[in-house]
């Protein structure tokens, strides 16, 4: 069990798809204007990732090596289209707000990346844990980015139930008079993402240095 949990934790901390692997950035920049969108997108990507990792891991022994990428893409595209149809039918409000970014999940590098790097080389259970970890890491990253952007860009923190747009879970008006609307726009997305990545990597570097110093002292 420890090994599985390590795989799961990997996707959230050491190999977080957005902050460390730097995959799937386009959707993360575009979708993170509100917390609601972030959660909706995170859940959708996690579902697709889970299914695609499972299927590709099950088929990994019989997919010929030369055409593996087209096969992965066919599988992922089919899954995304099914998710899109199901979302349109059962969660119309979320479908409307995510709009064009649902079909864009097909080209979200995280899914193809994990299929190639992990699911094609590991067993089904491991792949499932990897998918869950990566999906949670992705959702967490989206939440962090959209929290910053929504707070600074519109002055409010608001969470609406993604599956029932009339249910407002919480809504705090913090500093709407001082909102910098730049952060609701693409330029602000880049600024936010860059700053957060800088902060995270600095913390990581400081920790590494301290660990090395400790090792040197012990010697």
């Amino acid at each position: 069990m420890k090994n599985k949990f390590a795989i799961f934790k990997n996707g959230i901390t050491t190999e977080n798809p957005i902050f460390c692997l730097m995959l799937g950035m386009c959707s993360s920049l575009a979708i993170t204007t509100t917390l609601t969108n972030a959660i909706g997108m995170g859940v959708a990507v996690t579902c697709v990732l889970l299914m695609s990792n499972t299927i590709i891991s099950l088929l990994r022994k019989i997919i010929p090596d030369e055409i593996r990428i087209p096969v992965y893409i066919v599988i992922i595209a089919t899954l995304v289209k099914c998710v899109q149809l199901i979302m349109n039918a059962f969660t119309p409000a979320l479908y409307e707000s995510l709009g064009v970014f649902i079909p864009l999940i097909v080209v979200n590098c995280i899914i193809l990346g994990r299929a190639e790097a992990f699911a094609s080389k590991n067993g089904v259970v491991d792949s499932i844990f990897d998918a869950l970890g990566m999906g949670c890491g992705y959702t967490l990253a989206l939440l962090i980015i959209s929290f910053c952007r929504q707070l600074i860009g519109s002055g409010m923190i608001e969470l609406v139930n993604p599956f029932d747009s009339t249910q407002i879970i919480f809504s705090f008006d913090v500093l709407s008079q001082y909102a910098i609307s730049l952060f609701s726009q693409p330029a602000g997305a880049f600024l936010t993402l860059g700053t957060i990545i800088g902060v995270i990597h600095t913390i990581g570097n400081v920790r590494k240095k301290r660990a090395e110093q400790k090792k040197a002292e012990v010697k």
Partner: protein
Amino acid sequence: MGKILKLAVFLAVISGLSGLMLSYVNDLTAPIIEQQQIAAVQESLSVLYGEGETFEPVDAELPEETAITSIYSVNKDGAVAGYVYQCAVQGYGDEVTFMVGINTDGTYQGFVPINYSGETSGFGSRIADSEFTSQFDASSIDDGVDTLSGATITSGAVVDGVNEAVEHFNANYR
């Protein structure tokens, strides 16, 4: 040659299976999606006119390039009480669809935005707020509707659509 054939067959099989799965899910969800769209139209119509009226789609002559996508006549006690215009305009981000109700006596019944998900929240999305929709409370259609400051593109497109509906109403039903 044999190798390429094998690869091609494998790819074809995978694609065939995908096609089957897609058509299965489509069969499952298509009726639900259609129901939803009908329900959404009914709901928007009821928001404007309340329960108790019947709505009928009208087959009208529409000009080539028009924002009007459909027209419904509102029938109350056997007589036509007004018309609801469903319009689609190009907003700031994506298409904005809305309904505007015009009574036969030349006053607005109301304005209901249906889909404005492409508009910036806090800016273009204000067309759903009372600051914009209150202009349609029983005011005369000759008065005209104002755009929103700070949301020029979205509200301008919507106002243009409303004006097209008014024009059509004046030409056909006044």
